[in-house]
């Protein structure tokens, strides 16, 4: 497999770009693997990458029902951040942020990691206090955070509606190290890296059944035949309940659709990620010039990878409340991904009631920024049977034991997280 460099670019340019090789192989499934990962999304590919690279497990397959990038990894708003409050969350997301910072050098692929800053706006005294507390918690964990007042914000973001009658903008909490990453390139980079470590990435291969012998998984049935394995790992966020049902497992998870939108291309306008704390609206500008934005989930269970118009209107309204100038901007595209909304809004990464089945899911709509750490920690769990030190709070039994990781504080209501 070729390494990308200035020299390879130059060499290929002089040979008229005829010698570029595919970034990963397209192998047929082997009859047996040490580890099978169901789900070739960001988390599944990252797991395969770190499993092969850091933990030396090479006989690995990733089974993807569609093509690479067809699921949530290609349907999100590309934001990365580690501005978390809770003890169980913060070190994990900061670990993820540190992996993002070295990711491109690590897997030799340009993922366009851009630390342009993430600003969460606040609109009331109570919200300011909550963000102050969050900022302090972040700094206590060694994460950067800065509270900006209204004047500082006006200088940075002059186009916001500061005089909004209902939600006047009073300031914002900024994490300067937050930003955006090109989501497709994350999938491609991890896929290429895993492939280079001899991981088989098998596309258009849907798992239709799971074979068991007592409490032991022996393999999977797929649309491309039966494949046996020593360990089976689920990383199918969006379809977690569906796949878990194959082994009679019920989960504290509901599936909900979340839409993302992109506008027509504009001249440079917003150079950070901004979130509207009053409603639920977040926006950044892509390097092509399109505004990339999103809002709330649809609110009802869905497995359809599309949203409904009611939510389009809702998101557009929230966007207009924050930036009135958006009223003249045309929305070009919208797309919907299916989220695993868990009962406390936090992910689940753990072993299961079956001895060699491992579960990774429940990312709600925060899965993208977690991609590298999720892969690393899940690989750690698969290789050592012990949770990584930053992922110990994501245990499956936390609901039954009363150790909920409820960052938003709204209780056991999946559609409110």
């Amino acid at each position, binding site marked *: 497999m070729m390494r990308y460099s200035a020299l390879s670019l130059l060499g290929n340019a002089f040979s008229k770009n005829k010698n570029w090789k595919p970034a990963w192989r397209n192998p047929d499934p082997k009859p047996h693997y040490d580890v099978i990962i169901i789900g070739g999304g960001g988390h599944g590919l990252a797991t395969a990458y770190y499993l092969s690279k850091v933990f030396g497990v090479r006989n690995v397959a990733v089974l993807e029902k569609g093509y690479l990038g067809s699921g949530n990894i290609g349907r999100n708003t590309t934001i990365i951040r580690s501005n978390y409050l809770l003890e169980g969350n913060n070190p994990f997301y900061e670990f993820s942020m540190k992996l993002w910072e070295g990711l491109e050098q690590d897997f030799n692929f340009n993922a366009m990691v851009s630390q342009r800053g993430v600003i969460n706006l606040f609109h009331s005294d109570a919200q300011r206090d909550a963000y102050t507390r969050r900022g302090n918690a972040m700094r206590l964990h060694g994460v950067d955070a800065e509270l900006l007042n209204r004047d500082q914000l006006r200088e940075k973001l002059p186009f916001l509606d500061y005089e909004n009658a209902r939600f006047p903008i009073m300031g914002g909490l900024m994490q300067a190290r937050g930003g955006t990453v090109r989501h497709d390139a994350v999938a491609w980079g991890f896929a290429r890296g895993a492939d280079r470590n001899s991981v088989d990435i098998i596309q258009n291969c849907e798992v239709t059944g799971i074979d068991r012998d007592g409490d032991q998984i022996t393999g999977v049935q797929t649309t491309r035949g039966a494949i046996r394995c020593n360990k089976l790992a689920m990383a199918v966020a969006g379809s977690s309940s569906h796949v878990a049902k194959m082994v009679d497992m019920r989960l504290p998870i509901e599936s909900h659709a979340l839409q993302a939108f992109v506008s027509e291309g504009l001249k440079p306008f917003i150079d950070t990620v901004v979130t509207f704390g009053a409603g639920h609206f977040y926006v950044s500008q892509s390097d092509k010039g399109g505004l990339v934005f999103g809002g709330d989930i649809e609110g009802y269970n869905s497995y359809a990878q599309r949203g409904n118009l009611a939510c389009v*209107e809702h998101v557009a309204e929230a966007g207009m409340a924050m930036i009135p100038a958006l009223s003249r901007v045309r929305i070009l595209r919208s797309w919907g991904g299916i989220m695993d909304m868990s009962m406390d809004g936090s992910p689940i990464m753990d072993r299961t009631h079956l001895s060699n089945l491992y579960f990774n899911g429940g990312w709600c709509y925060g899965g993208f920024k977690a991609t590298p750490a999720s892969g690393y920690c899940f690989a750690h769990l698969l290789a050592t049977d012990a949770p990584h030190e930053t992922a110990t709070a994501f245990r499956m039994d936390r609901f039954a034991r009363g150790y909920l990781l409820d960052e938003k504080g709204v209780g056991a209501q999946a*559609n409110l997280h």
Partner: protein
Amino acid sequence: MSSLVKCPHCGLRPREEFTIRGEVAAPRPDAGADEAVWFDHVYLRDNPRGENREYWHHSGGCRRWLVLSRNTLTHETSDVVDASTLKAEGRA
């Protein structure tokens, strides 16, 4: 499902008029029921791919609780009834 919901009392109404409570679960367990029963009731969900029965509150209309039978793959609703009729039939 379009963005319209057919309320049995008000007819076709926009989806924004409704508040969604989620899956129609088994009836609430006794206060003294086993911990595992309560855990199941509060946290676990069937979350089916296909037909799902769920509570919708017509909060911006007649304010009745409805039960929708809805396909989670296609968003099509096949049946909408007032929650009280289900209760009378002992189905919820």
